[in-house]
């Protein structure tokens, strides 16, 4: 039974990586930049949800149905709204002025934004870790109690699936989604069609950041330590997942995230907890050596 239990934990962790990786991969696909501040947006989302829940649950009658639902739902929604605004503002202030700049300048700016967010969080909310209250508590016990699946785990996997289906439909069928694909392929041609490229990039950041908020809440519900650096490592791992799956590809981010979560969990369970991150990155290196474009990525040669 432990194998199954590890697998479920891996899928759940992988779902969180996948949701974060979707943000990375969408922004990369359309703006052609690596937004290394993406992980820190997750952290901001978790803090917003944390404070909203703490503030609201005090207002509710203890033990009532409203007390069990309202703070959580409001916390998640508020986190999404704040992160959406944050993402659009970051893009507008930090990245948009660099649209014509070399990609290295943009990359360094993104790292700067990441540090800024971490330090701002430390200034605002302190360096001491907060204990995040899970948005849903409890678990179901299966197979005579040998297999426990928490509601958070289920919620995480279901949310990831819903996001995946929603995003695929949006990108595949929606007018804005198609405009995003057009921008991703050829910005000048997209402009000639009447597509506002800057607005499209802003929408991409908005969606990615709203997803980051969701990921932050789900992640802290499963792993409750919340501090200003909480988003950094998951951010890097999700970036790895996006590259692993093929950066720019939405199904790739999903697959990469899931695989990364499963590999990490199994490594912790069967090989070594200390080495788990090293092994995860080793797998990435091997995959990229064999298939440089990632699992589902397309190799597009640079035009000269």
């Amino acid at each position, binding site marked *: 039974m432990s194998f199954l239990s590890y697998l479920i934990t891996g899928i759940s962790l992988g779902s969180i990586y996948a949701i974060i990786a979707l943000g990375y991969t969408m922004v990369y696909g359309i703006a052609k930049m690596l937004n290394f501040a993406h992980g820190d947006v997750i952290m901001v989302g978790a803090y917003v949800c944390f404070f909203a829940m703490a503030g609201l649950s005090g207002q509710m009658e203890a033990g009532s149905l409203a007390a069990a639902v309202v703070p959580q739902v409001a916390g998640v929604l508020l986190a999404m709204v704040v992160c959406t605004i944050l993402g659009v503002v970051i893009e507008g202030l930090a990245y948009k002025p660099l649209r014509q700049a070399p990609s290295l300048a943009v990359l360094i700016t993104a790292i700067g934004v990441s540090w800024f967010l971490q330090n701002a969080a430390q200034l605002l909310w302190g360096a001491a870790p907060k204990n995040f209250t899970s948005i849903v508590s409890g678990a179901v016990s299966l197979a005579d109690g040998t297999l426990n699946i928490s509601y958070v785990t289920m919620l995480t996997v279901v949310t990831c699936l819903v996001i995946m289906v929603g995003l695929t439909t949006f990108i595949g069928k929606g*007018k804005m989604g*198609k*405009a995003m*694909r*057009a921008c991703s*392929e*050829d910005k*000048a*041609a*997209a*402009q*000639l*069609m*009447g*597509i*506002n*490229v800057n607005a499209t990039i802003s929408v991409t950041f908005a969606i990615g950041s709203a997803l980051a908020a969701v990921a932050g809440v789900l992640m802290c519900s499963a792993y409750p330590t919340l501090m200003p650096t909480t988003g950094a490592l998951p951010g890097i791992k999700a970036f790895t997942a996006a590259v692993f799956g093929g950066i720019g590809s939405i199904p790739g981010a999903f697959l990469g995230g899931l695989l990364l979560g499963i590999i990490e969990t199994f490594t912790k369970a069967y090989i070594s907890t200390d080495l788990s991150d090293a092994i995860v990155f080793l797998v990435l290196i091997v995959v990229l050596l064999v298939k440089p474009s990632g699992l589902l990525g*397309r190799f597009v040669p640079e035009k000269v």
Partner: protein
Amino acid sequence: MALLQVDNIHVYYGSIHAVKGVSFEVNEGEIVTLIGANGAGKSTVLNTVSGLLHPRSGSVCFEGKNLHGVPPHKVVEHGLAQVPEGRRIFLQMTVEENLEMGAFTQPGSTIAPGIADVYRRFPRLEERRRQIAGTLSGGEQQMLAMGRALMSRPKLLMLDEPSMGLAPILVEQIFDIIKELHAAGTTILLVEQNARAALNVADRAYVLETGKISLTGTGAELMASDQVQKAYLGG
């Protein structure tokens, strides 16, 4: 009043002075062509009209409105469409999605009839409507690029080197289509290296040489000109 009036534009790429005071006009119902060698500044002129490049001085007026400072995605809404050099279709999208993108600025209800119009003109595209555009042949890609531009129902269609890289039989086909579009009332600004084909269909023509207009006249006049014969028609 001319439909498109370009007045003394100067365009730079950094410190390179690519277009040095070009003026021309396109009247409603005309086919006007800009011919010239590679690097003469033809595409630069078109991209300036489309708003992708900004003139350092001079003006571009469409239907009497100065397009100064109008971003490229708004220029389309004024009724200008460009078929860019090298076609620049969205290779990873389907044929039909490419056409939908062409109608991005149009109200949703006009998209289906617009697509039907394009399919009537280019039956090959209808056969391949669900195909990824990258799998089309060069001639089909050019048809798609033209169909995509027509989706915005432009008052002025600008074509940048539509014959580039196509087999002679396809070049002929593309020019037949240009004539048909013109006969149907579309005003066309055509940029071409293939001077003979362009002058054949054009009402009026301008010869562009290293960023300046060196000669102008009707298509027939330029076809007969010694200078054009020598430089562009191999005569």
